[in-house]
């Protein structure tokens, strides 16, 4: 292997994803541009025009067509990538299940963005959380560097014979997709060797070995068994993710952890969060810890498969936990990260009081004050839980005139055990 060389770049998250795509040299990239994913498409199109990749770039007329073309290309045995965001991802929705059910190792970048209405182009997790049950592996990058690393690791996981599932690598819209950040780019040769060649077991276009995709599995046939196969593959992906992540760490010097922890050796009050806000929580925790406060942060990088074991292992010493969701599940008990975390703890027999915070919707600024406030709230939580007080979902950073609000930017919504 040639000596590996990393170049420091001033690049946006989208640019780093485009670089990762270039280095993985996909066979086909069908795509439809949508803010804030657009830079990925623009940059990649330049790579194609400059002859830096040998990719069939297919500018389609909609995201529905983009995913349809990706499914066809992947079934034909091509290494296939695409990228989208927001309404575009929503428009792909029915086909996300097809890609996963047909076990096609498509890698898709999503620049996480709010969903209409009202129309909003900024970053939150409303779009990507809509595909959490589709059978795709889902990774959440904290910054441009992780967006790059995640994208490269995705190829290894998606195309592994024990997995064969599509992967969504996600980065927060504008905050990560568009902001210029410092990131290291690995040399092309090292990446090519790490990512490897995709060798499909079958190809739809191979006339010597004819196969059909998308067959009919009716009542009592083998539909349930196929779904069980997907679940088993998702379970297998834990090991493959860990191994590919460890190998990438050896090359790059950057760890790939399902769950990133800060201060968890002794933290009593903990924030659980994903994506670009992890660093904000860490910065606040660092300040508070300097004053001797026992606070910590747990940031998830992997959401599907849900890393329940790692998460509970990190949390079990805590006394009060704030779980922050950057999307809504209106009518549900709480956001998806909260639900999963609480279920993971209950399954492991760990009982720690939690509060669910909804934050940063439509790109609302995640100020450090919000995070100081949450750590402050957590001081009261164990006593409130002891008394049996029900604290529902808490909106932070939203204006309210409600009398029960702690400030004019915080509103509680009694979703749990509401007596009406």
């Amino acid at each position, binding site marked *: 292997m040639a000596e590996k060389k990393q170049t420091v770049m001033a690049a946006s998250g989208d640019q780093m994803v485009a670089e990762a795509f270039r280095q993985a040299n996909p066979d086909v990239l069908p795509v439809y541009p949508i803010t804030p994913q657009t830079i990925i498409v623009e940059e990649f199109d330049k790579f194609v025009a400059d002859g830096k990749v040998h990719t069939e770039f297919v500018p389609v007329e909609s995201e529905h067509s983009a995913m349809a073309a990706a499914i066809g290309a992947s079934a034909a045995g091509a290494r296939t990538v695409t990228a989208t965001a927001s309404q575009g991802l929503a428009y792909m929705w029915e086909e996300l299940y097809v890609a996963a059910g047909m076990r096609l190792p498509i890698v898709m970048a999503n620049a996480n963005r709010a969903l209409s209405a009202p129309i909003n182009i900024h970053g939150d997790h409303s779009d990507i959380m809509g595909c959490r049950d589709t059978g795709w592996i889902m990774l959440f990058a904290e910054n441009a560097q992780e967006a790059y690393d995640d994208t490269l690791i995705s190829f290894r996981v998606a195309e592994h014979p024990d997995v064969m599932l599509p992967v969504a690598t996600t980065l927060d819209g504008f905050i990560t997709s568009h902001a210029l950040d410092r990131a290291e780019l690995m040399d092309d040769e090292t990446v090519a060797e790490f990512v490897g060649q995709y060798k499909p077991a079958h190809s739809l276009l191979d006339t010597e070995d*004819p*196969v*059909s995709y998308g*067959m009919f*599995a009716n009542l009592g046939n*083998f539909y349930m068994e196929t779904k069980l*196969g997907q679940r088993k593959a998702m379970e297998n992906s834990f090991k493959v993710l860990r191994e590919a992540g460890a190998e990438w760490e050896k090359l790059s010097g950057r760890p790939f952890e399902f769950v990133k922890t800060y201060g968890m050796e002794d933290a009593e009050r903990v924030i659980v969060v994903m994506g670009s806000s992890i660093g904000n929580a860490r910065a606040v925790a660092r300040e508070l810890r300097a004053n001797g406060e026992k606070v910590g942060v747990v940031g998830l990088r992997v959401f599907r498969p849900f890393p329940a074991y790692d998460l509970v292992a990190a949390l079990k010493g805590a006394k009060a936990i704030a779980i922050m969701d950057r999307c809504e599940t209106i009518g549900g008990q709480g956001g998806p990260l909260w639900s999963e975390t609480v279920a993971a703890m209950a399954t492991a027999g760990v009982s720690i009081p939690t509060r669910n915070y909804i934050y940063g919707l439509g790109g609302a600024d995640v100020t450090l004050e919000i995070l100081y406030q949450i750590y402050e709230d957590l001081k009261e939580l164990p006593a409130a839980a002891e008394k049996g007080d029900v604290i529902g979902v808490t909106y932070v950073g939203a204006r309210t005139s409600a009398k029960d609000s702690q400030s004019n930017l915080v509103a509680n919504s009694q979703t749990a055990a509401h007596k009406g």
Partner: protein
Amino acid sequence: MAWDIEGNEKWTYEEIPLGAMTLEGGTGTKHLTGDWRVKRPVWDSEKCIHCLQCWMYCPDNSCKAKDEKMDGIDYEHCKGCGVCAQVCPVNALTMHVEKDIRAKGDEKELHEHAEKVLKEEEGK
């Protein structure tokens, strides 16, 4: 793995090809759909001008062609949709009630033909 349509309802999740793929070409021929038919197309070779419109339109490849000429109907797979009779410009194809034809004793001929087709398939 040879693809046996008869056995697939017994497959465990480990046995199902990845993504429920069919690992063999042209397996549709193994699925005999001729008994779905309510109406049967009957071909009159005297009237036929071999324009092959029926061959082009048939959704189940059941209008057979040989040496660029119409060569009868595959009753093992014809579902009796009637599109061939619709497109035929000279009324060489006409639709008749299946059970009436069977009542006239053509059933035996039909059965023999089915066995012949299946044998040919197995021989491949």
